[in-house]
């Protein structure tokens, strides 16, 4: 059962890839999909080479750090290249799940860096994300690391719970997207008006984006169910509840986004509603196997409503250009899902103080993972500049980096599609 669920995860790759491709202009479409494939390839190699060794799994080998009378388990100590992994046991399943989900997390920053992040630096950044950053936080949460140990050692129920990767995968990806967006700066023409108002730069194919949402749903069933079974001992019968909650959260999030955009702009915005759907999937990942269905609706509704609001704040007030909405969809919705799990989920062994454990996990993501991922990407950016040249950006990433357009029959003579 768990193996089959893990095999559903690549549907989430396809979903995110289609969404990212649809949200960019036509002159960057092939580059976006090519980067997605490259990043997936680099991520699985990096994860297998060293990521799983550092992630490990609960009950496996790990390094500890003694604090007072307690030993904090801080990084896995398995062997590189999956040597010694028992593929008939939990270790093999954890390795398979980790490989696919590390690749998924690595695709998230592409949404924020779209239309200006060069292929080579994106691959380098991915190698570190999938080979070190994601395995580190995954070990702390799923591999018997200190965030999970808080429960037993300091009376915080089951410790920090993330039963589908809302924090480990989505928020980590979202915070990396934030770092990349900071380092790259906005796209040319985004803030060039006299009033410094951001120009709307619509994506070239909203059908891709909406179809990507449906593909992602199937992948998310796999992620949420496999993680709950593998890391939190949920019974395989919970798969139905996971599917119900994941769909409810996505659906109510889409309605939340559509309602907010309908109220703000007079009509529901298709691409923002699609982002809302994905935010619902992301938030559901915190505890899809443990939310009552009514709670999943609330979690999704809030996540969906948050997306258009946070995208507007980031773009208008904070001058952050995130073409795919990755920071809001994966970062902010992920954090919301983790917090909601502390209050609304029925986690086994959890008490009144579960929200404190969730807050400790959120504090770790913001206080440790964000500086770490920003620092790594800032150093990489020094040696391997992330941003394409001005000419390359004007020409389009397809032609500049790949030598051919995605749609060669479409010749664009205008400077841009931007509204001025």
């Amino acid at each position, binding site marked *: 059962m768990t193996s089959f669920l893990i095999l559903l995860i690549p549907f989430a790759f396809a979903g995110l890839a289609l969404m990212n491709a649809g949200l960019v202009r036509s002159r960057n479409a092939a580059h976006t999909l090519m980067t997605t494939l490259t990043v997936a390839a680099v991520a699985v190699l990096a994860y297998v080479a060293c990521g799983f060794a550092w992630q490990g799994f609960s009950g496996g080998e790990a390094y500890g750090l003694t604090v007072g009378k307690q030993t904090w388990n801080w990084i896995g100590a398995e062997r590189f290249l999956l040597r010694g992994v028992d593929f008939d046991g939990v270790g093999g399943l954890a390795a398979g799940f980790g490989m696919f989900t590390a690749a998924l997390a690595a695709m998230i920053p592409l949404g924020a860096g779209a239309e200006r992040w060069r292929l080579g630096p994106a691959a380098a950044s991915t190698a570190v994300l999938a080979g070190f950053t994601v395995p580190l936080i995954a070990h702390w949460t799923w591999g018997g690391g200190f965030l999970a140990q808080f429960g037993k050692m300091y009376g915080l129920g089951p410790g920090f719970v993330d039963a589908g990767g809302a924090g480990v995968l989505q928020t980590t990806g979202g915070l990396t997207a934030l770092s990349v967006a900071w380092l790259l700066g906005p796209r040319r023409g985004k803030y060039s008006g006299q009033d410094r108002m951001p120009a709307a730069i619509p994506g070239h194919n909203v059908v891709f984006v909406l179809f990507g949402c449906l593909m992602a749903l199937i992948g998310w069933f796999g992620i949420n169910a496999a993680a709950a079974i593998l890391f939190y001992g949920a019974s395989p019968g919970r798969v139905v509840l996971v599917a119900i909650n994941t769909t409810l959260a996505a659906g109510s999030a889409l309605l939340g986004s559509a309602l907010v955009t309908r109220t703000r702009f007079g009509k529901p915005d298709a691409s923002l509603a699609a982002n809302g759907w994905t935010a619902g999937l992301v938030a559901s990942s915190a505890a899809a196997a443990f939310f009552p269905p009514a709670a999943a609706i609330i979690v999704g509704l809030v996540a969906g409503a948050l997306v258009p609001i946070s995208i507007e704040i980031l773009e208008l007030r904070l*001058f952050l250009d995130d073409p795919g909405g990755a920071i809001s969809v994966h970062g902010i919705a992920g954090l919301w899902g983790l917090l909601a799990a502390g209050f609304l989920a029925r986690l086994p062994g959890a008490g009144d103080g579960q929200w404190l454990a969730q807050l400790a996990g959120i504090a770790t993501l913001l206080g440790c993972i964000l500086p770490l991922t920003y620092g790594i990407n800032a150093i990489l950016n020094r040696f391997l500049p992330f941003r394409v040249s001005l000419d390359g950006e004007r020409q389009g990433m397809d032609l500049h980096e790949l030598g051919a357009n995605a749609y060669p029959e479409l010749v664009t003579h205008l400077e841009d599609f931007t509204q001025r």
Partner: protein
Amino acid sequence: MKLAGFLLLLSGWMIALTTIVLLPQAGSRAAFLLAGVAVEIVGLVLVFRGHTQPAHHQAREERG
């Protein structure tokens, strides 16, 4: 400003971890944990402000 912001993020995290280890009572644990997250939010604001200024500069340059 960016560096100060990142240092505050790390400090907030340290406050949160230390709180869990040193304070077993639920009330004080919750208060200090929230204080740690509040320090992180201040850090995040500083990092955002540090990055907003170059964005203004880029917009001015593009206007010519």
